[in-house]
């Protein structure tokens, strides 16, 4: 997911000069990119020591927190955009985190692996959980504890009364707008709350 084209596809949706919170910001490369290319400011949240160090090295503000403990540290609508890029599927409290994401941000962008991508469906039809470039793990060692699809997220977002501003798939760095639930390995949702 860290490929340049994917980063571009997400960065394009972040307005110039926006205040950004990046949940599960990894090594801070997306935030650094947004700061450099789009004049954004903000913070990353990370739990992993090596990633926290990488962020400090890059000069990206990073707060070491366990997202499972919530976002109590951040105020309502404190950010223009909250990013949750390939983070959602690692969290036990997916729905709570989605609500928290919506609470602290005027808008949110969520990206996660779409388990309904056709090679994954094929694999399940053959009787095996998918192991692909996008989902390189075996079922017994995967950190992706929440297995959801493009369509599933639509349902969850609607249930939480989030307004979907845009939704599309990403495959090989290209936006997929036709049948994204079947044709894209990554689902991207841009939403805002009431």
């Amino acid at each position, binding site marked *: 997911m860290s490929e340049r084209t994917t980063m571009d596809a997400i960065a394009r949706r972040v307005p110039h000069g926006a205040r950004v919170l990046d949940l599960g910001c990894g090594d801070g490369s997306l935030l650094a990119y947004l700061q450099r290319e789009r004049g954004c400011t903000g913070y990353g949240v990370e739990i992993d*020591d090596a990633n926290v*160090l990488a*962020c*400090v090295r890059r000069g990206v503000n990073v*707060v*070491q927190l366990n997202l499972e403990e919530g976002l109590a*540290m951040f105020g309502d609508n404190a950010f223009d955009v909250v990013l949750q890029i390939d983070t959602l599927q690692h969290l036990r409290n997916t729905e709570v985190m989605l609500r928290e994401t919506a609470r602290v941000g005027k808008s949110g962008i969520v990206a996660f692996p779409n388990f309904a991508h056709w090679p994954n469906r094929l694999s399940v039809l053959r009787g095996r959980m998918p192991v692909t470039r996008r989902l390189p793990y075996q079922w017994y060692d995967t950190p992706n504890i929440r297995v959801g699809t493009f369509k599933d997220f639509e349902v969850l977002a609607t249930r939480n009364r989030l307004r979907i501003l845009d939704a599309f798939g990403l495959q090989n760095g290209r936006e997929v707008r036709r049948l994204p639930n079947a044709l894209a390995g990554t689902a991207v949702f841009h939403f805002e709350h009431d």
Partner: protein
Amino acid sequence: MSFIATPQFLSFPDALPLKGGGSLRDYTLAYETYGRLNADGSNAVLVCHALNASHHVAGVYEDQPRSEGWWDNMIGPGKPVDTNRFFVIGINNLGSCFGSTGPMHLNAETGEVYGADFPVVTVEDWVNAQALLLDRLGIGQLAAVLGGSLGGMQALSWTLQYPDRVRHAVVVASAPNLTAENIAFNEVARRAIVTDPDFHGGHFYRHGVVPKRGLRIARMIGHITYLSDDVMNEKFGRQLREGLAPRYSTQDIEFQIESYLRYQGDKFSDYFDANTYLLITRALDYFDPALAHGGNLTLALARATARFLLVSFTTDWRFSPARSREIVKALLDNRRDVSYAEIDAPHGHDAFLLDDARYHGVIGAYFNRIAEELGA
């Protein structure tokens, strides 16, 4: 073997007004510096010390083996705070017993040793004195102010008292104020000292005695709170000092932990001043920048313009991660630049003085960014 450090002294004849009322005049500050101040004076880093430390932050004294400064693993050539790039200053705080004017010195106004009459000094007073010393060294703005524990409180206070003079603040294992439990520990330590018959109301110097019993107990209780349960168990467990069978005595040293604490207490009572202990624990108790803002830390930190790095340690229960997070939250509310690392270390509060690759890695990376910013 570290580099050679040399203590220096500067005297200040003018009165320093104190937060608690009154003032202190004709005082001396002991300090040390490492590295070189660059041409535009932009690479200065002030290191603030905690309870049991001094201006001797790093390096060793000539011909004195094992005289490494208290943060020698952090500061020096090629270390996380690299003295090849930064000009580092350590200042001994007023009221201390390591060189700056303290309760064991003569009060010029009365011609007597201060003793219990040494005025109560606060974190804010210390910062004001540090600022005056920096004036004398020709340092306008600090590249960074750095401190752990009580030193972290001074670093935080710098950003509030002199926002224009601090570019970065690195606050380690600290808190925005002490909790009731924390004040309670300090009070037990103070009562141990004050009720020692050798204390003589703080004027024990006249009597040629030292309230060592009180100091020992103060140190013992302090020491317990600086460690974690896990680390104590790992180090001592239920090990007996001698043999394998208990001796069933109420007063002899039975367990290793007792022996260790008594040793620490003895060592401490040989060099630390009883009045200094009272003064410094009081400075800890009084520190509370939010007080003037109705307890609202966000409002209190609105003045700060520095960029911040905060570090805490998971097993530190004296200055717990939750307290550092309060500072982080107040800075986030004010939209300040802040990074926060929570280091999973087993050593409790003491962790801030120990070697830990993750901890030193983050501090080193942060100071590396500062140096790059300065072109140092």
